């Protein structure tokens, strides 16, 4: 389209022109500044290009600005396009989500082993190995699944950017119900139930604590610690290559 002479545009401060036209742009300062810079650069280049095609200064300015169309529409479009898609809050992504994944998986594994695993005969003994063997047949397979579950939890938390403390807290989250039981539930039960108080001995308490809190935590961390450091190293290598 040939350029016709039009009324003179008073100034060619493109940055100012863009800022004035997008004055109500609802973005944070940094984001808005980037948009202003980018559009300013585009308009300036368009203007220079139009000048080199033989347009007068006024016409080049007018046509460059007209390229944006309705500035209110452009403003709405930019706001919509730069709106961040809702993402999981940081604490949820780094802790709660992996924590509940590990908790759920550990519970599901225990239930599946109980349903589909070894089905020992129960014998009428109250002490010794023959008493605990049926329990161990269920317990040990479950304990062996925990490093894998811990590794998964650590990986998820690590991917979300969790620091070591958060990653390991999420990793050992499945022991929380048992910890609560041993630290709060059992003492309360001893207060209100004579039967529990009479039958629970200190060695039994520590055996239970080791079996359901300390060993599972160690098993979860046995998977979680290498997963955390390995995935951290992998990420660093990917970043340096990318």
């Amino acid at each position, binding site marked *: 389209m040939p350029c016709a002479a039009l009324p003179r545009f008073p100034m060619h401060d493109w940055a100012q022109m863009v800022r004035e036209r997008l004055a109500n742009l609802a973005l944070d300062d940094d984001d808005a500044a*980037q*948009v202003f*810079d*980018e*559009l300013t*650069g*585009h*308009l*300036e*280049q*368009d203007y220079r*290009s139009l000048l080199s095609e033989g347009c007068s200064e006024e016409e080049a300015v007018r046509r460059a600005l007209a*390229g*944006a*169309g*309705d500035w209110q*529409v*452009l403003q709405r*479009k*930019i706001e*919509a*396009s*730069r709106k*961040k*898609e809702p993402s999981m809050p940081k604490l949820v992504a780094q802790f709660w989500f992996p924590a509940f994944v590990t908790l759920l998986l550990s519970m599901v594994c225990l239930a599946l082993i109980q349903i589909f695993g070894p089905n020992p005969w129960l014998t009428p003994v109250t002490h010794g190995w023959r008493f605990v063997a049926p329990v161990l047949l269920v317990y040990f397979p479950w304990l062996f699944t925990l490093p894998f579950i811990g590794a998964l939890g650590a990986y998820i938390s690590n991917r979300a950017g969790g620091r070591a403390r958060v990653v390991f807290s999420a990793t050992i989250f499945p022991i929380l119900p048992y910890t609560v039981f041993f630290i709060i539930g059992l003492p309360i039960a001893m207060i209100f139930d004579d039967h529990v108080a009479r039958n629970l001995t200190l060695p039994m308490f520590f055996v239970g604590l080791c079996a359901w809190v300390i060993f599972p935590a160690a098993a979860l961390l046995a998977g979680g610690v290498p997963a955390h450091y390995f995935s951290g190293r992998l990420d660093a290598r990917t970043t340096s290559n990318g």
Partner: protein
Amino acid sequence: MIGTGIKKGTAELAILSVLEDGPLHGYELSRRIEAQTNGSLSFSLAALYPMLYRMEQRRWIRGTWETSSNGRRRRCYRLTPQGKKKLQPLRAEWSELFHALRRLTKVSNA
């Protein structure tokens, strides 16, 4: 002249295809598309940047600030691995559409 609806649909394909050849900043990108399609496809500033920002949000392209030799800051866009992955099915879809339209309308060399 190609209608607005089809232009909208082809915009993503056009941007990804042009960026496949190398990184470009917004203005160059719009000029390149216009030149390569003999003016059939052209992006106004109002159409281009919201589209680029949306594609960047989807991680198909990545914009980085660069300073040119004359000291001007420009945002340069390049295709990401996700963008490359997206380009293949997009091309296939549009190719299929063109073939279907050609058969339907019996237009040769469409």
